[in-house]
């Protein structure tokens, strides 16, 4: 990908890697479409397994600090994720936690409500589609005829990228909005002054509600929590006022409130605003204020209508929360 740029500035060296991820973050980078020409005019992609045939050994061969920017997406679930995070940290000037999983733990982070044993049992024994009469479980070592085979070790706990290595910036989202990526990329290319280290980039300080054009009033009292399919959405009233849990109030803007525009409540992938330590706890406190009841039994009954509260409030943020995980 060595194309030359017009103004003869040295081209940036860029890497993209995935830890425990679904691949959506990598695809979001491809989503720049024709702007990819601007990207490759200004940057050489030196490592990006989803798109380029580059190997671990190519990275290992690079001198320290060789890569200008690494977009690391995915959480740290196993020893390979961890090894690559450490390696890319060493080789990169700027390491960016790209997307919800690297930022806060993301969907894989919900695994922290279980441990390795429980997950393996479910996946390799009890799940309805599994046929495994010999009870074969993943192992890190296997002595095959051809020699020893190694697999990464699957950890009990999912970690965010910054729980393993030092991270320079965070770009939230599941996946991050491609326009935001371009803005950040062009800012680096143009040599703009970068924000304070450790800050969140490519997102606003204000929440989804600030942009959201649904009508919000002080009348936020609900007797019943609904799942989105259970209401006849009037398309204009705040989801919370219709009894649907929307994480917009506890979630940064920056995505252009796309889910809400599509008439689905916000699920919180852009993470918390700057001063929040635990967005799940914050949102639960806020939801508590909506409940239109005073008797403990009635309140409990209303709260019980929330399906999977842990997965709802901590959908993207469990490993980064105060809770971090269920006790093993």
């Amino acid at each position: 990908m060595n194309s030359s740029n017009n103004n003869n500035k040295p081209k940036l060296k860029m890497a993209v890697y995935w830890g425990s991820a679904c691949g959506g973050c990598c695809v979001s980078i491809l989503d720049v479409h024709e702007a990819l020409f601007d990207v490759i005019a200004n940057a050489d992609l030196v490592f990006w397994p989803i798109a380029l045939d580059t190997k671990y050994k190519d990275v290992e061969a690079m001198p320290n600090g060789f890569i200008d920017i690494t977009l690391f997406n995915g959480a740290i679930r196993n020893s390979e994720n961890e090894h690559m995070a450490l390696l890319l940290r060493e080789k990169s000037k700027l390491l960016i936690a790209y997307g919800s999983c690297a930022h806060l733990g993301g969907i894989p982070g919900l695994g922290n409500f279980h441990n390795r044993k429980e997950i393996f049992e479910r996946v390799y024994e009890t799940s309805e589609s599994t046929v495994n009469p010999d009870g074969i479980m993943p192992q890190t070592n296997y002595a095959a005829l051809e020699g020893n085979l190694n697999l990464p070790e699957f950890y009990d706990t999912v970690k965010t990228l910054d729980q393993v290595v030092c991270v320079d910036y965070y770009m939230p989202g599941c996946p991050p909005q491609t326009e935001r990526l371009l803005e950040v990329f062009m800012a680096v290319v143009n040599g703009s002054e970068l924000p304070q280290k450790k800050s969140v980039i490519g997102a606003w300080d204000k929440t989804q509600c600030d942009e959201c054009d649904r009508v919000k009033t002080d009348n936020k009292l609900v007797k019943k929590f609904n799942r989105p399919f259970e209401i006849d959405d009037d398309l204009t009233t705040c989801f919370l006022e219709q009894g649907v849990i929307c994480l917009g109030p506890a979630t940064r803007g920056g995505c252009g409130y796309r889910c809400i525009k599509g008439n689905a409540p916000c699920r919180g992938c852009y993470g918390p605003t700057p001063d929040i330590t635990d967005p799940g706890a914050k949102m639960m406190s806020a939801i508590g204020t909506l409940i239109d009841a005073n008797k403990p039994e009635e309140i409990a009954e209303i709260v019980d209508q929330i399906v999977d509260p842990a997965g709802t409030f901590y959908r993207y943020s469990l490993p980064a929360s105060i809770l971090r995980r269920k006790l093993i």
Partner: protein
Amino acid sequence: MKEPKIGVYICWCGTNISHMVDVKAITEEIGDMPNIKVSRNYKYMCSDPGQDLIISDIKKHKLNRIVVAACSPRIHELTFRKAIENAGLNPYLFEMANIREQVSWVHTDIEAATEKAKSLVIAAISKVTHHEELERRTVDINPATLIIGGGITGMTAALDIAESGFKVYLIERDNKLGGVVSKVDLTFPYMSSAQQLIKSLINKVSNNKNIEVFFNTKIKEINGYVGNFETKLKLQKKARELKFGNMILATGLKPTDPESIHEIGYGRLPDVVTALEFEQMLIKGNIKTKAGKEPNNILIVHCVGSRNEKYNPYCSRTCCMTALKYSNQIRSALPKTSIYHAYSDMRAFGKGCEEFYSQTGRKNAVFLMYDQKNDIPTLRRAGKNDRCNIIAHMYEKLSGEDIEIPADIVILMISMEAHENVKQVAHAAGVSICSNGFFMEKHPKLDPIATTTDGVYIAGTCQSPKDIPDSVSQARAAAARILTSISVGKVEIELTTAVVNEDICGACHTCINVCPYSAISFDEEKKVSVVNEVICKGCGTCSSACPTGAISARHFTDKQILSQIEGLLAVSNKLSEKLEMEEV
């Protein structure tokens, strides 16, 4: 933030703390921590020499954060804040760790208590590191006072304030002054006339130019804050706006509805009357049955609706003595009538009351004890051959026998409840209600007149059941508190309020409804929530409800509290690590 230079002071409290907590060991250990410039212990930190120690250290070592580990901050937080202020440091750069009430007084193991005290001190250090300077603010006091309730309590307070030369607005829901006392004949224990008492008060109130009385008036809404309250009254002819600096709630009592107590037969049996109905007979000097006959037997049933989980769990405090008063009045009026008291315990705690009880006991009345918890007397209509109207059945506890008592009139000593408008008044004035329905005081022991809303005082039976002297004492105490605030002219308002970060606020409106003081409004132009810092009490409800973190409660920010928790856990983590090591 400047580099923290923290001074830590650990108090022995004589032997109160030092007998259970190794204060010297903590002092030493804390002294080695980062940012700790001074770490001392002293016999009595609250004493003048103790305070001087802090003041001279602040000056000498340029300390900018202070932690005192001593008793409850309820007792001495203000003492130390003042000392720190005297040394030229902002008083909010201070944190207190309670190692007496929360440690030495409640534990018996010196090693564990010392460890807990240490973690509380470390937590305080972690929190104080994040404290910010807060500036003092004052507001002027409007010298007028609003008093809700024109009974003996409201009128007494009104006169004390008005006679000092200040305006009083007295609000009465009825069309006349006097309240319950005006419906009573004589008072206990000295048998003086309640009528004379109350009539002279009504005269004084009516003739005082500083008191403006509003009859048939109810308060719907009160806005503002200490020093500057206002309300709009809807009068018959026109609306009227009142402005005042303080208020007293003296809304009084309501007798329990006797029909709600089924055993007792009120409404079913014509000669079963309530205490207040009997007072009317006494005022008229005419103790007769409904059929117009002089009664041969009168039964007085005590504790009707009081001290019983089914009705009111509390004691109504005045009924025992009122019942004895009736015994005396009946004995004088009808020397031959038999008087029976069905009582459960005789409570004669007031001045002159025990004496009153023993005198009354000698005047030919029969005292029969019933089991209040399980066996309230039941009343039924007497038969044709019985020589009385009503027969009461009860288990007499002292003799252990089931007995029947003949009666022509039965007097029910009905319990006192808070007035039915208490909820509406509480909401308007921004005060809380206790589980029994009475107004909640700021502190049950140390501040029973004030409420958690500055400038709002409570007096009389709206706070709890009480007799005339207690009601009058509270009335005069509330008046004195208000006169003090008027004479000072200004009041310091709470600094530990909530504050909105407009750069973060996402306009979700969550905070607006949760504020119990209506201190938050929405700025439609800026699209952010706004806290009125004068009304805000700093309760923190909004900051915990705010999902964006835009609202923080000053002096109790998430950062401060989380670092306090981290401080606490730092020690226990080490402790559990140590324990794990030992296990290995």
